[in-house]
């Protein structure tokens, strides 16, 4: 969950705050039937908080924070180009990519978190990766 939040915010402090809030809210609900159900609740809560956080950030027009280490690591790499394109994609696509690669959720788990069918999640993942490839090709 921390990697998922960090991947979307790229801000260590915001990650700690949002993760704490997500834990607080997730624990406030009824006791989950099993570990997986709790994980889904935690990710769903974290995602709701992230959406609000990112919306507030875009409303205020504040520049998106980026940790210095992150900046240095990503400088002039293929990964930087990929992430640069990804950040221009719709929030839903960014979210599903982060849940897949940062949080290592299965398509079925992602489906529960974002409220889509498992098949739809698979299609979005496939199309987003293809879209990234095409964007890189256009860039040359």
């Amino acid at each position, binding site marked *: 969950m*921390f990697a998922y939040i960090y*991947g979307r915010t790229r801000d260590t402090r915001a990650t700690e705050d949002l*993760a704490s809030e997500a834990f607080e809210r997730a*624990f406030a609900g009824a006791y989950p039937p099993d570990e997986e159900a709790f994980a889904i609740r935690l990710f769903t809560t974290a995602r709701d908080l992230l959406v609000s956080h990112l919306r507030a950030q875009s409303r205020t027009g504040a520049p998106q924070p980026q940790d210095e280490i992150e900046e240095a690591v990503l400088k002039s790499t293929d990964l930087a180009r990929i992430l640069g394109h990804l950040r221009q994609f719709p929030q839903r696509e960014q979210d599903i990519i982060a849940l897949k690669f*940062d949080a290592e959720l299965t398509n079925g788990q992602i489906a529960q978190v974002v409220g889509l069918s498992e098949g739809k999640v698979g299609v979005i993942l496939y199309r987003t990766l293809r879209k*990234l*490839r095409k964007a890189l090709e256009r860039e040359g």
Partner: protein
Amino acid sequence: MSTKEIRELLINEGERRRRLGLLAQRQVNDAWGLNLSPPKSSEDEPKALEDE
């Protein structure tokens, strides 16, 4: 760059972010008094205090 290569780079980046997230996770776990890792064996489980 192929879709497979893009996928591999995203997987590696995910691993890096998970490592970075560990510290934040530890801080939040400490704040909540949590130990989310399950005991590895019955020997690791807390033993009941014996009556004195």
